[in-house]
């Protein structure tokens, strides 16, 4: 677990936005940004930058602007948390979503490589608030790290749990939603040449029982194609015997399940003898 001090001037990876910039523009027949996360009490401004009239209406949450001509704005300050999809009723293909949190916490894009931390970013009500990151362990939320929110209430944590974990942030009595952080297993692939050529794959941490795919790179498809299926044994290992009549570029993928993300080995090339 690596607590990282907030970096002022660097926006968090997630779409959660600091209070000053909660503006949604309509530059044409679309909302930009389409998806915005704010905190309870933070005003959101929709601004019509298009040359057509638009409006904003949500089925729940009370967002109802009436017609907005070009250049007009509408301000809405949420008082309850929730997820509120909205549309322009004049152009129903214009769709957006407002997410309102008591306290926001989000995972940035999940890491694809093993050993890389996941960045959790969020927004607290005010700069200087003390944010406690807690992790769920055997049904109990256990403090994991602490940080002071930076400008606009923003904060980030970088986490690298050994096993799949759920985190949440706490500021006073405000509590964020839980965020699940997946673990990417490391998959190593060895080639054993004997009477047959055998590929042996091992996953760490142990993923005993997980489903596995042997994939081959198909040049004209510019992609990896599954060719064989298998399962990791109790030692988190699997073997595949492969043909040696043609040159093949192969790799092994351990499929995601139970809080673990897909893990992929580096490719190997098996050449004809």
């Amino acid at each position, binding site marked *: 677990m690596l607590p990282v001090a907030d970096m002022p001037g660097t926006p968090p990876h997630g779409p959660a936005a600091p209070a000053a910039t909660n503006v949604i523009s309509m530059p044409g027949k679309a909302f930009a940004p389409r998806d915005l996360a704010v905190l309870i009490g933070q005003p959101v401004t929709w601004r019509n930058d298009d040359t057509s009239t638009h409006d904003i209406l949500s089925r729940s949450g009370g967002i109802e602007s009436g017609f907005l001509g070009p250049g007009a704005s509408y301000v809405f300050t949420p008082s309850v948390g929730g997820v509120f999809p909205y549309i322009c009723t004049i152009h129903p293909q214009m769709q957006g979503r407002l997410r309102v949190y008591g306290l926001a916490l989000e995972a940035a894009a999940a890491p694809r490589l093993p050993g890389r931390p996941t960045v959790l970013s969020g927004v607290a009500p005010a700069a200087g608030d003390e944010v406690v990151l807690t992790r769920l362990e055997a049904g109990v939320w256990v403090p994991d790290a602490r940080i002071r929110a930076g400008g606009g209430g923003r904060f980030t944590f970088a986490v690298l749990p050994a096993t799949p974990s759920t985190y949440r942030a706490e500021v006073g009595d405000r509590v964020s939603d839980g965020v699940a952080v997946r673990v990417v297993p490391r998959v190593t692939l060895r080639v054993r040449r004997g009477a047959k050529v055998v590929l042996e794959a091992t996953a760490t941490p142990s993923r005993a029982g997980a489903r596995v795919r042997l994939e081959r790179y198909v040049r*004209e*498809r*510019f*992609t990896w194609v599954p060719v064989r299926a298998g399962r990791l044994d109790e030692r988190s290992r699997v073997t595949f015997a492969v043909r040696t009549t043609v040159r093949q570029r192969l790799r092994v993928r351990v499929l995601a399940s139970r809080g673990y993300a897909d893990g992929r080995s580096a490719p190997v090339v098996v050449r004809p003898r």
Partner: protein
Amino acid sequence: MARVLLLFGLFVLAAPASAGAAVREYWVGAVPTTWNVIPNGHDPMTHTVFPAAERIAHTVLYRRFTRGWRSQFRNDREVSGDNDGIPGPLLRARVGDTILVHFRNFDPARSHSMHFHGVSYAEASDGSYVPGFSGPGGNVRPGKTFTYRLQAGPNAAGVWSYHDHSPSMHASISGGLYGALSILGRREQRPDREFVVVFSSLMGHQTINGRAYLGNTPVFHAKVGEVVQWDVLAIGEEHHTFHVHGHRWVGPEGGVDVRTLGPAESFRVRWREDAPGAWLYHCHVEGHMGHGMIGLYRVSR
């Protein structure tokens, strides 16, 4: 004797004018389908990855069936890549043939139809919806069937499009409800390979046979020495310029290697293959090529 000659003469006149003309029958359905525009999930040129929401469409496509719509089978793997739905089944005939297309609408929500280019038909088989004029053929309701009777006349040799022309045609065509007819001259030799290429768009991507980006678009194969035929069509809103690397063909003004086509235009090009290699084929409108309208053509020795 005169009577015998008269009867013989009448018999000759009554026989079909085109000896060897056939009646070809096809069973086609408009079927709700989930279609993946980018099955590999990425563009290998730019390494852009596309999330599922940007590439998976719930749409209605023409699919081929056995007689009486008993069972569905693959549209035409050999000619349209492994695409099984866009374009719809390739309908083949020769000049002089009668073509019966039995159509059934499997979409529970909307009417559909089939309107054919290039062939002759009576008004009842026009397949387009004209309020006050058209009959059931232009507006085949959910669950209903209609048989289109078409004739491949003397000017029908070539490749032509067919598509929905019912009240829902705008949404249907942008969802992939189109296909091709390939008609040979009476005595024209079939090519060794036939490749169908339909330029259109779907979910904001520029598509070839409903797919976008290298690896997802059809990969065509041929051998040196084979006669290959490209059936090229465009459907939708835009003009496209068809180009194949490493090859050129003869047009009205001499050599050509890029040819324009607009919506519903089509043409076929043939050559005897002489250039081994892995060649790109694509629309040369730069923005279209960058948004998916590019594929691979492999020629082996």
